[in-house]
């Protein structure tokens, strides 16, 4: 008597069940082997603005008083800034960037939402962007930026040309006069320049903001927050009495702005 003879029922039914089981297992295995393609994602961005965590709205401009790290009371009247080269980097070191840019007008609510022309597979990436334009981008000619902000986003050639990185304007209260007085400030970030030398000395003061890991999937919207108070405090406490105007040709002031900007101004929401 063969095994088959001893186990006839098992043999005939067992074979069928074994085959069925193998088929089922193979289906499950196929699913676990990721044959389903990952969705392609087009992440979007939303830019928000706050003063040490308190949101800044249109109604706050020229109305709300803020106190900076150095103790000056100030109001804001304008906040326009340029970001570029939003970049996603995966674990393998591949980078994905459209190389485009976005000019945000915080007070007027222009370009607060931006979708760079980059498509990714869903997954986890490191996110970064450039504040302003690096030297390569700053050498370009962009009709829309030549027209933007009323056509005055351009930096004069005598200051190295290119484009502003940011215009942060307002008034602070000068308590050293009697009575106290309101004094305008123009915290304009551009490429650092010293035109007392021939040729002009230029230093690229744009900086990369690394926002860490993001998980992108269909419909992902990433919030980038600007804490405006940070422009005045970290690592350099900004003294508006000394540095309130004529900052574009001030080489050292541009370095200080850049260092403050690179330390805590931007975070991911």
């Amino acid at each position, binding site marked *: 008597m063969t095994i088959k003879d001893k186990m006839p029922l098992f043999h005939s039914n067992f074979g069928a069940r074994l085959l069925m089981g193998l088929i089922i297992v193979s289906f499950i295995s196929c699913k676990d082997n990721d044959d389903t393609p990952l969705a392609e994602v087009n992440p979007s961005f939303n830019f928000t603005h706050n003063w040490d965590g308190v949101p800044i709205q249109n109604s706050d401009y020229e109305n709300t008083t803020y106190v900076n790290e150095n103790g000056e009371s100030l109001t804001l009247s304008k906040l326009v800034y340029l970001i570029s080269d939003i970049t996603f980097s995966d674990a393998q070191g591949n980078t994905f960037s459209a190389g485009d840019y976005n000019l945000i007008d915080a007070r007027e609510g222009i370009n607060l939402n931006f979708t760079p022309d980059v498509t990714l597979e869903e997954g986890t990436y490191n996110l970064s962007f450039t504040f302003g334009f690096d030297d390569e981008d700053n050498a370009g000619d962009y009709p829309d930026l030549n027209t933007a902000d*009323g*056509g005055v986003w351009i930096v*004069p050639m*005598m200051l190295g040309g290119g484009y502003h990185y940011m215009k942060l304007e307002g008034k602070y209260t000068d308590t050293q006069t009697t009575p106290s007085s309101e004094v305008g400030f123009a915290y304009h970030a551009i490429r650092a320049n010293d035109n007392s030398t021939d040729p002009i000395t230029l230093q690229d003061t744009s900086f990369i903001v690394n926002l860490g890991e993001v998980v992108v999937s269909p419909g992902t919207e990433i919030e980038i927050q600007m804490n405006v108070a940070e422009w005045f405090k970290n690592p350099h406490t900004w003294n508006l009495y000394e540095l309130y105007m004529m900052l574009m040709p001030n080489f050292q002031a541009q370095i200080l702005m850049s260092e403050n900007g690179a330390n805590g101004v931007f975070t991911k929401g």
Partner: protein
Amino acid sequence: MLGNIKNIGLIGGLVVFLLACNGDEPSPYMATPANLDVPDLFANSILPPQIPNDNPLTVEGIALGKTLFYDPILSANNTQACASCHLPSQAFSDPNPFSVGIDGSLGTRNSMPLFNLAWHDRGPLNWDGSARNLEEQIFEPVTNPIEMANTWPNAVQSLQNSGIYPELFDAAFGTTQIDSVMVSKAIAQFVRTLISGNSKFDRHLLGLEELSQEEARGLNIFLDETRGDCFHCHGNPGNPLWTDNRFHNNGLDAFFEDRGLGAVTGDPRDDGLFRTPSLRNLSFTAPYMHDGRFSTLDEVIDHYSEGLVYSETISPLMKSVADGGVQLTAEEKSDLKAFLLSLSDESFLTNPDYQ
């Protein structure tokens, strides 16, 4: 069965009717398309002009608009045209601080020059931003009691009764039935063709002409944040419009009889703000400021140098307000003036297309 045949017949007839109607539907009227004569400097540096989709430029529309611009028929007593307050010899502004209406009434603001408005349409127009666009701006003077003092029904009737206008409107818009919207559109088309881009400084940028030493020094003062710093509002060589098209309080008054933009928006933050004018053609557009208070360019420069007056809404870009301004030397003022005058375009005044 007869009922079914009847129904089929009705349906079939309806289908034929609809097809026939679609086939016979007249095409919308198309006048002859026209393009603006855009200077190379403009084309190579800034975004194209914005032409509204509902008022494209046409040869016939521009011609009609030009005729209307110079015709006093729009005014109540047939004495005042657009050109009465926007004189071609003054770059389409008025040499008087305030224009005079048909009954002798004095206006309240200096007539703004008209050029390069095809690019200015991105922002509201008029000193106070009261017109959202050019078509809207054109409606107001006709009915303003201190200007043309007419009604639109009267103005339209005058045009309708004329021997020439029905035919001109037919050529421009495909109808002899005139209305105020078409009048506004035609004039807007003409005004958009007014382009000034042939100043000495433009020719300098094109490599065709050298600046004088005074003009070159004046440009540096204009662009220097530690001296004139005029560029933050009035632009720079990279943008040929020479205005930011924004509204600012430039330190003229401590208190406002004329609230400017604030009267339009109702927002007190806008009180005392007025539209930045272009610096082109200053040789021809005196007097200056929204109320024509400065007769000469020297007075304007003096204002920014020593004459600033603080008010709550003064622009943060106004420097050294406590000292009155940027404190230019006499030589710096002279150089700055020389540069500013290099932005004037004589050919604009005599262009036959605009006369």
